[in-house]
């Protein structure tokens, strides 16, 4: 296959866009893992569910519980409404899936997150039916020309918003008291409690923030993916792989891991085989685990202790 610089740039943009989504979802995994020591298997459904909520307000008509509704609200208003609603959902999720089980070890909480995942998918089917839905894009054109490149503005938006969120997160964790409290809680909950941090409150904020990361991912990706109740499943699987590649528990690792998997699988699909795109992501995972079991940015257990 001949080397085509335009095709390679095109692949890079697509890879970074999909990788950004993996990175945001991987961040959600990592933040919850750091805060409470469990993997949240509902993280992918935090991408799907708000997307359905958004299209209910956005589309000219859509069946909700079998009743046709015609809200068709402005896009930015819908984004704001969905984010507010998902804050409420995050609080509810923490109260229902985490708090009652928090003193019973990690396994019941993990099972609870699997339960929430199944519940959300079935709820989505009950409320919105099985029909795939298309979320309107904020852009009036599907592509823009950047020289010889045909780029989807939505891809650029995904990359841009992810970059902003990463910067925001850096300032949150490094420059604010709340961020420092979150980091302290992630490092040692008991010690954090001893120095006066309200750990329960910090855990709740972390859950809500993770739900919002999923929500933003969903709102960004829905216009190019179509909204289905399965849309979060594969994203979550790749994001999980990304967080392990980066070093489970490492925030920079989740970001780099997500971007790396997105870019490598896109190039792998082009240069190696489109049939084995998923396999490529998981081969990377296995290779990293063999060569560096703690992941690219993870600490060795001995170092951490």
């Amino acid at each position, binding site marked *: 296959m001949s080397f085509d610089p335009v095709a390679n740039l095109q*692949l890079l943009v697509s890879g970074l866009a999909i990788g950004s989504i993996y990175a945001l979802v991987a961040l959600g995994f990592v933040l919850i893992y750091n805060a409470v020591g469990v993997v949240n298997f509902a993280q992918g459904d935090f991408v799907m569910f708000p997307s359905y909520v958004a299209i209910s307000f956005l589309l000219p008509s859509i069946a909700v519980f079998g009743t046709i509704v015609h809200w068709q609200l402005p896009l930015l208003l819908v984004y704001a409404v969905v984010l507010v609603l998902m804050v409420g959902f995050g609080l509810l999720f923490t109260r229902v899936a985490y708090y009652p089980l928090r003193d019973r070890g990690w396994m019941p909480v993990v099972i609870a997150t699997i339960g929430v995942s199944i519940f959300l998918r079935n709820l989505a089917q009950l409320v919105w039916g*099985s029909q*795939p839905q298309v979320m309107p894009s904020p852009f009036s054109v599907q592509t823009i020309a950047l020289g010889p490149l045909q780029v989807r503005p939505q891809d650029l938006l995904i990359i841009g918003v992810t970059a902003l969120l990463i910067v925001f997160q850096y300032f949150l964790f490094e420059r604010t008291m709340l961020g420092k409290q979150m980091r302290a809680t992630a490092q040692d909950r008991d010690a954090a409690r001893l120095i006066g941090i309200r750990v329960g409150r910090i855990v709740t904020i972390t859950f809500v923030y993770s739900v919002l990361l999923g929500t933003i991912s969903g709102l960004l990706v829905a216009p190019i993916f179509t909204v*289905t109740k*399965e849309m979060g499943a*594969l*994203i979550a699987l790749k994001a999980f792989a990304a967080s392990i590649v980066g070093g489970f528990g490492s925030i920079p690792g989740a970001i780099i891991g997500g971007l790396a998997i997105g870019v490598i699988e*896109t190039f792998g699909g082009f240069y190696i085989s*489109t049939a084995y795109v998923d396999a490529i992501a998981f081969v990377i995972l296995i290779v990293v685990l063999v060569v560096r079991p703690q992941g690219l940015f993870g600490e060795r257990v001995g170092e951490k202790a």
Partner: protein
Amino acid sequence: MQLTRKKFLATTAASGAAIGFPAIIGAAPEPIRIGSIPPLTGSNALLGEQEHDGVLLAVEQINARPGKVYDDRPFVIVEEDATNDNQSAVSALNKMLGENVVAIVNPVLSTQIQAMAPVMKDQVIPWMTGGTAVKNMQLGVPGAFRLRASDAITAAAITNFIVGEKKAKKVAILHASDAFGTGGAEQIVINLKKHGLDPIVDLQYPKDAKDYTAEILRIKQSGADALAMYVQNPSDTAVILQQIRSLNLTCPIVGSPSLANTTAIQTAGKNANGAYAAVDFIVGMNSNIATHFLTSFYNRFHKQPDVGSGSGWVFDAVNLLAYVYKQQRSTDPKQTIASLEKIRNWEGVLGAHTADAEHNMVHTVSIGQINDGNFALVKKVTG
């Protein structure tokens, strides 16, 4: 003890039941239990919903007729969820086989049919399927029938259209990695070879993929002058068509029937404009039965049916079973299979049904083109 009217009636009814009184005055006719295994949950739930509705509509209409199926015997549906994976589908089938059903309708997914075949090989029971992969009817299942056009016909129609009408010499293939996609792609390759051609690229994508940039760029780079698509899932179809337009791939696209199902067309919107598909049903060109089906489906469920892959073929399957049961005045499975093998020119929603040696019932497809949400006939092909 005082004998009230209520106690008298209760005692009389209980005694009558105990001595078989219903047999004397004429018991309610025994219902005919038919099984249905659509994918009601998972990523193909939309298909399952259409199949559920198609079976339900057929059963309701038959049960509302004088005499019902025959001798006042009504149909009763026994339904199990095939979900989205083969293991669950086989479990659902095993459960169904213990439910005393006389025939099974569904699935439509070839991958599930092929997974169920080893179980069905040992069963003598009519199995009305909708999957179009050629292999489905070559698995040695005695009761299996196909109520839709096989991919041998569809792929030949797609290839002949691409090569004959569109004069393409460099044909790219893009297909899903499931049994439907791979089976269809194999048939396209076989038919291209008949024209002395090999595909310029033959690409499959993994299940639930959402980014097709690599596939589309490879097709673009190959210089393909036509693209044959075998994609089952309407959501995948919509995303692929959107990305094809975004990446400015301009060659003609000719797809499998699923490209033109109502959901795919609605979801893809204007991105589907100009795409062709080989289908077993086009609104307006099939029989009065089809027109009646469309009207009654809409009146019953207040939505449009996905006729080909969704609700139409199951509606035909149930009606064909009812027709055979009425003719033979029996639901004996062995006799039913023999009767189905003799079916010639039975008219259903998808047109004339004639059983061939492999138990294929439908032998006609049409090429149509999508424009602004409509799908219009371009050419009719009989295999």
